[in-house]
C-alpha cells in the first residue's frame, strides 16, 4: 500500500486530563477519499488537528509523504490543506486578499491565474472583492476551501465540510471533492452524515472514544456488515408466524401485515427459495415482496454502540 500519511500510536491527553486519542494507527492511501465517521467528541477533529499541527500530540508519530510532521514540519505542512469546521474568517478582509494571504504563508511564488481559476471553480470569482462578512454561510465555507487549496496541497482535510450546508451546496461540494480526487489530491473528511461517507468515500474509518474502531473499504464494509431483509406483505393479517417458518429468521410485524426475513446477501445459500417454497404451503396470501439493505448508518450505530460497551473490534 502506498500511503501518503502514516499515523503511528498517536495519543493526545489534554491538560484537563481528557484523553482524546488513545493510540491511533492509521495509514491513509495516496489519492483516496477517506471518511472518518464518529459521534460528537469521538476525536475526529483532534486527530486531524494533530496531523495538521494545531494540536501537539502527547506521543506517537505522523509522517506526511515521508516527512515527520514535527521534525520536518515545513515540508510536511506544505503538503497539507485544512478546511476547519468553524467558519473562521476575519470579517473585513476581501475574498481575494484572504486567499492570497493564505497562499503567501506557504509560498512566495505568486500565481494569480491559479487563484483565479480556483475562485471560479468554487463560484466565488464574482465575489472576489466582497468583504467576508457580507457572504452567506455557504459562501464562507467555499472561501475556507479556496484558502485551503490556495497552495495546491497534496492532501486536503475537510472537517465536517457539509455541516449546516444546504442540499445544493452539499452536492456541489461532493462534485468538487470528486474532481479534486481525480487530480490526485488525497482527501480526508470527517463527518457525522453517514450518507456523505456512503456517497463519496473510498474507505471508511469509524472513530469513537479516541480509538479507530474499524477501517475498511466502503463496499467491503457494507457487504461484510450489511444485512439484507426480505419483506413479505400479506393480504390478510396473520396472528403468528406460521409453524413451518419457525426456526428461520422470520419476524411478524406488530400489526401482523408483514413478515420480515433477514439473511446474509453475501452467503452462497440465502435461503430465499426455501422460504418461498414453505410460504406457498401455508395458507397465507402474499400482497407484495421487497428487499432492503441495511445502510451504513445501521452499521455505524451498531459499531459505536458496541464500542462503547466493550473493547474495540479491531484496528486497521
Amino acid at each position, binding site marked *: 500500500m502506498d500511503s501518503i500519511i502514516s499515523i503511528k500510536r498517536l495519543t493526545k491527553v489534554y491538560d484537563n486530563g481528557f484523553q482524546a486519542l488513545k493510540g491511533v494507527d492509521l495509514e491513509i492511501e495516496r489519492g483516496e477519499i477517506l471518511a472518518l465517521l464518529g459521534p460528537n467528541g469521538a476525536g475526529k477533529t483532534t486527530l486531524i488537528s494533530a496531523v495538521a499541527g494545531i494540536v501537539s500530540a502527547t506521543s506517537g508519530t505522523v509522517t506526511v509523504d515521508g516527512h515527520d510532521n514535527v521534525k520536518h514540519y515545513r515540508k510536511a505542512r506544505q503538503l497539507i490543506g*485544512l478546511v476547519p469546521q468553524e467558519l473562521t474568517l*476575519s470579517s473585513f478582509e476581501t475574498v481575494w486578499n484572504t486567499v492570497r*494571504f493564505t497562499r503567501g*504563508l506557504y509560498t512566495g511564488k505568486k500565481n494569480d491565474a491559479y487563484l483565479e481559476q480556483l475562485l471560479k471553480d468554487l463560484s466565488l470569482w464574482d465575489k472576489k472583492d466582497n468583504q467576508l462578512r457580507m457572504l452567506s454561510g455557504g459562501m464562507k465555507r467555499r472561501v475556507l476551501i479556496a484558502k485551503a487549496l490556495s497552495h495546491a496541497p497534496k492532501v486536503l482535510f475537510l472537517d465536517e465540510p457539509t455541516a449546516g450546508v444546504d442540499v445544493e451546496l452539499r452536492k456541489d461540494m461532493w462534485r468538487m471533492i470528486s474532481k479534486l480526487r481525480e487530480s490526485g489530491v488525497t482527501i480526508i473528511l470527517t463527518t457525522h452524515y453517514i450518507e456523505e461517507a456512503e456517497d463519496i468515500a473510498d474507505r471508511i474509518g469509524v472513530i469513537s472514544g479516541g480509538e479507530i474502531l474499524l477501517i475498511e473499504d466502503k463496499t467491503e464494509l457494507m457487504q461484510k456488515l450489511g444485512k439484507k431483509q426480505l419483506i413479505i406483505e400479506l393480504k390478510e393479517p396473520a396472528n403468528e408466524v406460521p409453524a413451518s417458518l419457525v426456526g428461520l429468521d422470520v419476524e411478524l410485524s406488530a400489526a401482523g401485515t408483514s413478515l420480515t426475513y433477514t439473511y446474509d446477501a453475501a452467503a452462497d445459500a440465502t435461503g430465499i427459495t426455501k422460504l418461498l417454497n414453505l410460504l406457498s404451503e401455508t395458507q397465507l396470501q402474499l400482497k407484495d415482496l421487497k428487499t432492503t439493505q441495511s445502510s451504513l448508518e445501521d452499521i455505524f450505530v451498531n459499531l459505536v454502540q458496541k464500542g462503547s460497551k466493550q473493547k474495540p473490534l479491531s484496528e486497521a
Partner: protein
Amino acid sequence: MNFSAIKVIYRAEMMRAINTLFQTLASPVISTSLYFIVFGSAIGSRIQTIDGISYGLFIVPGLTMLTILTQSISNASFGIFFPKFNGTIYEILIAPLSFFEALIGYVGAAATKAFVIGCVILLTANLFVDLEIQHPIWMMTFLVLTCISFSLFGFIIGLWADSFEKLQIVPILVITPLVFLGGSFYSISMLPPFWQTVSLFNPVVYLVSGFRWSFFEVSDVNVWTSLSMIFVFLAICLTIVSLMFKTGYKLKD
C-alpha cells in the same frame, strides 16, 4: 526561513492600520496636542524651568514615550489576540512557518506602527515648541528599541490574554501607572529621596531619561544605564517569548 509568510503577515497587519489611517494617526496627534495645551501652555507657563529647559519642551520626550509604549503594546497585543479570538489563528498554526517567523511579522508591524506614530508626535510637538535634538542617532536608537521591546511585551500580553478584559488590564493597571510615575512629566530629582529610590525600580524611568538625554543632554540616570536597561527588558521579553514558543503556550493544545 519563510520570508513570504513574514511578508504577508507584516503586510496584513500594516494594512489594518493603513485602512484606518485617519484613526491611527488622528488619535495620537489630538491627544498630544491636548497635553501640550494643558501641560505645556496652560500649566507649563506657571512652572519654572527644569534643568534649564522650559516645561513645554521638557515633557516632549516623556509624552512621546507615553504614546509609543501604549501604542506598541496595544497594536501587538491586539494583532495576535484577534486571530485567537476569531479563530483565524489556525492558518498560522498549520502553515509551514516557525513561531519566530510569525513573531517577526506581528511584532515588526506593531513596532513599525508605533515608530511612525512616535515620529508624528515629535512633528506635532514641533508645532508647539521649538524642538532641538542633540543626539539624533541616540534618539532614534531609543525610539526603535522601545518600539520593538514593548511590541514584544504586547505580543506576550496578546498571547496570554483569553478575554478582552485581560487584554486591557495590563496596559491600564501596569503600564499607565509606570509611565506616569516614570518621570514623563517631571524630573525624578523633584521627588523626596525615598520615592527617588522607589522610582529606580520603574523600568520606564530609564526609557524616558535616556530618551530625554538624547534631546537635551539632561537625564535622571546615566544614558548607558538607560540603554542597558532597555536591552535587559528586551532580553526578558525574548526569553518569555521563546519559552512560549517551546511550550506552544496558549496557542496549541
